[in-house]
């Protein structure tokens, strides 16, 4: 018989899914810290060496790649309904991101905005989180 978690908060996860989930949590925290750190360096520290500039920019990219790799491992450890919920949520997140980017780009051009700062990653992230919660509620 497969092992299941005995935690009342995680009764919908197998031990393997929970184990990968813990690794994902650690990776997410480290990645977030690297993002904050690199953003701080970009804002307050002047780096003249092109190699160092590239290295600083690469740190969150590499850590992000590791985090996404662990996320894929967690997806594989999920059962078929959880995978379906995630697939739908990722599709919704992607679609919302594309629509946001189209709308934002058109608005910036039409309104002649001087500082066209968008936040595509945040929009996609919140759309994905919302869609996962909606999927959990729906099934």
């Amino acid at each position, binding site marked *: 018989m497969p092992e299941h978690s005995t935690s009342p908060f995680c009764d*919908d996860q197998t031990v393997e899914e929970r184990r990968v989930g813990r690794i994902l949590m650690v990776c997410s925290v480290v990645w977030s810290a690297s993002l904050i750190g690199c953003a701080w360096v970009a804002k307050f520290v002047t780096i003249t060496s092109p190699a160092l500039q590239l290295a600083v920019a690469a740190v969150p990219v590499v850590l992000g790649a590791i985090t996404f790799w662990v996320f894929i491992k967690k997806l594989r450890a999920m059962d078929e309904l*959880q995978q379906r919920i995630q697939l739908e949520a990722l599709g919704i997140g992607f679609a919302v991101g594309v629509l946001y980017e189209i709308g934002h780009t058109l608005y910036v051009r039409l309104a002649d905005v001087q500082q066209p700062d968008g936040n595509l990653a945040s929009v996609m992230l919140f759309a994905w989180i919302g869609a996962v919660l909606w999927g959990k509620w729906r099934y």
Partner: protein
Amino acid sequence: MKNKLKVLRAERDWSQADLAKRLNVSRQTVNAIETGKYDPSLPLAFKLARLFGAPIESIFEDK
């Protein structure tokens, strides 16, 4: 798709969590199948059939 999962489970006095453990799926999946919100994949349907010792068509039926 209709199914007799709840009846078969009750006959064995299993909770949804018990059945989920035996199938290696989440309790939410068992609940979603029982309430007809989710149709299982063919491998999972075969797993259910083996577990209950009954043919798939006797557990699931088209609406």
